[in-house]
């Protein structure tokens, strides 16, 4: 399978399909518009979350991830994801299993209990990489229906899209460019802001176990984006979306302040620019409201 294969196995994970289906819908609609097909991965599970299950038990994390990879291999397709957690887990597992034959053998012993096998024949890509490298900026630019010229976007990468760079392969994690390129194609401005490269605060089990600390962390990030004159935040991670969007309600409960700072997944923002409606990309049914400036 090559970079220009036109069908992907879409690994949904948990938060994309089960909390923010607008991310799934906008991803599928955009890819379809550029004649890229997505196929459902029947029987896929949680990736499982790299900072969570990876922190509790690597030896459970790995075979669950390998099972998901094996499903795509059985479909003879490369994988596309819409969450940095899924990207982190599946790509890291794929990397480790391809690098370490003994580990692959041990993992396949477990998968063999139910007739599956990791063979190492798929690759794991992320929707923003498909947009940037497979579809390409020129083709996207031709299709922009609603230029975002007067919109200031705070770009947020999350963590596991860029890092560790030795596995991800998107260059320096200190000077990323993929989201910036995609935003520029829509006409949006991308001001720098203090905490641009900072984590959303949710990962590694922190959102689950110590939510106030995790929310305070996010609060600082949002304040720094707002202070730099940004109108919204655009990111490539369903898990960050849960924290940054839903978390603003929790922040109100914890600190008594509601920012209502608009949070958009990359394909939701791109979908609007390509002419999809707010309803089609599910932005009418989340915590933060999207201003006219972005919708019109």
């Amino acid at each position, binding site marked *: 399978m090559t970079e220009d294969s036109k069908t992907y196995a879409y690994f949904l994970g*948990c938060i994309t*399909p*089960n*909390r923010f*289906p*607008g991310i*799934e*819908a906008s991803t599928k609609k955009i890819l379809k518009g550029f004649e890229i097909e997505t196929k459902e*991965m*029947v*029987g*896929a*599970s*949680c990736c*499982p*979350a*790299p*900072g*969570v*299950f*990876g*922190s*509790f*038990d*690597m*030896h*459970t994390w790995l*075979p*669950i991830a390998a*099972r998901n990879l094996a499903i795509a291999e059985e479909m003879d397709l490369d994988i596309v994801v819409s969450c940095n957690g899924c990207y982190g887990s599946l790509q890291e597992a794929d990397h*480790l299993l391809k690098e*370490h034959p003994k*580990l692959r053998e041990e993992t396949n012993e*477990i998968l063999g*209990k*139910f007739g*599956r096998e990791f063979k190492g024949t798929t690759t794991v890509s992320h929707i923003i990489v498909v947009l940037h490298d497979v579809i390409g900026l020129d083709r996207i630019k031709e299709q922009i229906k609603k230029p975002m010229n007067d919109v200031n976007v705070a770009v947020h990468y999350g*963590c*596991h899209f860029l*890092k*560790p*760079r030795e596995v991800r392969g998107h260059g320096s*994690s200190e000077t990323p460019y993929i989201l910036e390129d995609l935003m520029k194609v829509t006409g949006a401005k991308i001001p720098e802001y203090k905490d641009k*490269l900072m*984590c959303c*605060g949710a*990962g*590694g*089990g*922190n959102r*689950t*176990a110590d939510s106030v*600390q995790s929310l305070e*962390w996010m609060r*600082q990030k949002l304040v720094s984006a707002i202070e730099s004159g940004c109108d919204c935040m655009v990111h490539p991670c369903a898990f960050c979306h849960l924290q940054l969007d839903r978390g603003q309600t929790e922040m109100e409960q914890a600190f008594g302040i509601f920012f209502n700072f608009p949070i958009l997944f990359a394909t939701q923002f791109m979908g609007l620019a390509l002419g999809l409606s707010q*309803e*089609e*990309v*599910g932005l009418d*049914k989340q915590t933060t409201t999207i201003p006219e400036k972005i919708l019109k």
Partner: protein
Amino acid sequence: MGTLYEDIVARGGEVFGEEHMETLRECVQCGKCTGSCPSGRNTALRTRTLFQMALVDLREEIFNSPELWFCTTCYTCYERCPKGVKTTDIIRTIRNLAAREGHMSVPHRMIGVYVLKTGHAVPIGPDQMKLREAVGLESQPPTTQKHKDQLEQVQTIFRETGYDAMIDFNWDAMTLKGMEKKGGKK
């Protein structure tokens, strides 16, 4: 059981390779990890201290320290370490060792319960099914929560690796032992 350093190399080595884990020994205590740490800005997590504690074998102190769990695995220190210490993977390995010795919070153990019951750390409910329909998707995705035979494969993995015993899971009630009344049985 060896020293904590030996256990980190052995345990993490099984997945990442021993060389990867042995980078812990290269730590020169410069503190760039702590300086880079977004968690340390708000919490008492001091990554440099954590590594020094690991190197001088303060096993119980690390395992009982709440700060061990304040790392979000953001990899900022991993990217910046001038000595190439594989920081985040070392922290995750220390957590693995701590979890196996019973140091795991109830909320963290509960994540395992959701995955054991549905295959998802974040399962779907009726309200979210309506959200899916509103954007033109099938009400339920074709994942483990919909296909029980597929879910059983994930449950098999948990049994094979002993994760169920590690979190004290009650298969009859499908929840944590001791939480049967409050939680689980449907």
